[in-house]
């Protein structure tokens, strides 16, 4: 039993990272109907921004929680700016084109970021400094959680909650909801659609960057291709929860994390990557709109 609980803790921690990345996918899809394939690479950039920020703050030599928070915020801010830049330079020019053009552009941006990353950061892995010394906390007999795992979980929950508050209770958040329903109608109501789209990209990128830093905190190896797999899996998580739906992305991410850990722990680690795509196939067969998605009937 304690093994099962421990696996659950592992799964939820890992799943909260997927949830953070999935939020960005889902938000962009909700507003633009665009699957932003470069999103996983923003997660990678977030981890590298965190690495440079921690050098800037000398966080490795003299670690403190305040510096760790500064590193996280710097990385989120820089990545938000990169997200804005990508939206302006790559996606905005093709917004009026067929949806396929936008999708191919997204794949292009993804390749650009990965290979640009190899060029700038180098292909060999870098190691993220230990910003917070590792401690183990026993929850129950046989069930332990490290302070780093707890930080991942708590920061993820705080960010997800903040996002929900923002979307439901601020003017910009409400404008976002309006834009996601209908661009034209929203702009007729005086909402600057361009501004909302930019903000969406910035928030999504900041969340992905946070996920990058959080992962690097407990698993410190970072390299330019690290975003490919988590990106794909977070995309599956977003579809699982119902793409375009914010609570759905969180639930989808957690389900993915737990499923992966359980498969690794009880079956075989070789099925780890397979389970994500099995889940995708199952959900598309059984409930194509996702767990929380509303089935939309197209009017002809």
């Amino acid at each position, binding site marked *: 039993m304690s093994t099962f609980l421990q696996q659950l803790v592992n799964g939820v*921690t890992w799943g909260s990272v997927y949830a953070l990345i999935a939020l960005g996918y889902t938000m962009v899809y909700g507003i633009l109907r665009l699957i932003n394939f470069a999103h996983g690479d923003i997660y990678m950039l977030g981890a590298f921004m965190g690495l440079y920020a921690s050098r800037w703050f000398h966080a490795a030599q003299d670690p403190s929680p305040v510096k760790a928070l500064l590193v996280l915020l710097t990385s989120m801010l820089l990545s938000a700016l990169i997200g804005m830049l990508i939206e302006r330079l790559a996606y905005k020019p093709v917004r009026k084109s067929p949806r396929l053009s936008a999708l191919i552009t997204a794949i292009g941006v993804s390749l650009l970021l990965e290979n640009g990353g190899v060029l700038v950061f180098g292909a060999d*892995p870098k190691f993220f400094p230990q910003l917070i010394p590792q401690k183990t906390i026993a929850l129950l007999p046989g069930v332990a959680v490290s302070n780093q795992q707890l930080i991942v979980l708590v920061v993820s929950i705080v960010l997800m909650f903040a996002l929900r508050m923002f979307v439901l209770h601020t003017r910009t958040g409400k404008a976002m909801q309006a834009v996601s329903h209908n661009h034209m109608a929203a702009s007729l109501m005086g909402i600057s659609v361009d501004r909302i789209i930019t903000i969406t990209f910035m928030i999504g990128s900041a969340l992905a960057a946070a996920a990058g830093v959080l992962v690097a905190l407990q698993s410190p190896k970072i390299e330019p291709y690290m975003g490919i797999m988590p990106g794909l899996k977070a995309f599956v998580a977003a579809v699982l929860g119902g793409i375009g739906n914010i609570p759905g992305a969180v639930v989808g991410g957690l389900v993915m994390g737990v499923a992966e850990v359980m498969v690794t722990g009880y079956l*075989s680690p070789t099925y780890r990557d397979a389970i994500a795509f099995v889940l995708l196939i199952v959900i598309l067969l059984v409930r194509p709109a996702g767990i929380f998605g509303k089935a939309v009937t197209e009017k002809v």
Partner: protein
Amino acid sequence: MKLRQWLAPVAALALVVVALAGCGGKGGSGGGANEIVVGVYGSMTGNDATFGQSTKGGVEVALADLVEQAGGKIGGLPVRLVVEDDQGKAEEAATAAQKLINQDQVVALLGEVASSRSLAAAPICQAAGVPMISPSSTNPKVTQVGDRIFRMCFLDDFQGLTMARFAVQNLGLKKVAILKDVKSDYSVGLAQYFTDEFVKLGGTIVVEQAYTAGDQDFSAQLTAIKSKNPDAIFIPGYYTEVGLIARTARQQGLTVPLLGGDGWESEKLIEIGQDAINGAYYSNHWALDMPDTNLQAFLTKYHAKYNSDPDAIGGLAYDAARVLFAAMQKMAAEEPTVFAGLGSAKAGTPERKAALDRLRDLIAATRDYAGVTGSITLDANRNASKPAVVIEIKGGKKVYNTTIHP
């Protein structure tokens, strides 16, 4: 899968660019002065980049020796190194070997460290008749590829036996868990050899778990291992993952010792694992604090050139290059006409083929060569039989623990 679909065109494009750059830069080979070209290939970048870097470092020190002793020439011909990066990928290792043989016209290849990558390049060398000396691939299959493939280190069956004996006789362990990399020939082989000997000595393998190189999260495997209460965990992997695994193990409250093989040999192991790696043991080719005169002389030279400590991978690469140079020197002294075939001017001629055949025989005849990683005698299967050293990691330092003889 999507990933593959995207990567293929990019890889193809990269190949074209590399090919064009190669042509433009040098205008093919054979146009230059008559010289002896030696190829080095390894993971200069990628997941286990220190392996390639150390190999290159070791070979360069050997070349510096040659420059000092003989003006960098063998039989009147200057020796030039060509280094290729395989990025730690087996398919790239095969490409690197092709390029070195066909484009650079090398007389021999030095590399790789990881057995999976040596196994990818070895058939190409064998088919072309070019000798390949792997400094540090320990999987038995590597030299079984053919009579042109040599190695400078012990084999995994002996390495597995070493750690099994050490676990039972020196540490008194009875129940061990195994965590191996399922996609690595080295890791799977070493896990098997360890299991065989450990069970023979009366121990039990309580659980066997697996991962894949490049994984970021190992918590599920370690939780499954923890539930079986082992006395130790044997992790026959490479240093990057081992460091991450050690951290996760401590995170989960697993405090038993970790055991491993020579894939741990890198300065990065301690950088990644930090405190979590203390108290671990692994089998290795040498320990820097061994009082061997050849070893200490090499350390001094290495320090003077790079201002850092070499790892065993670098030491083995140095030995591999020295054995190759010694064979060529012998050939130049005793059979100068055959030796002339090794010159780059003779590329593609029958003389080249005869010279490569002779070079192979001379390398195979290496007996009692005083290397920095111990005395090297190649047996009928082109393997070096050497003792293994067990290293303990104490306070972030690698400390010699014991030597186990075959």
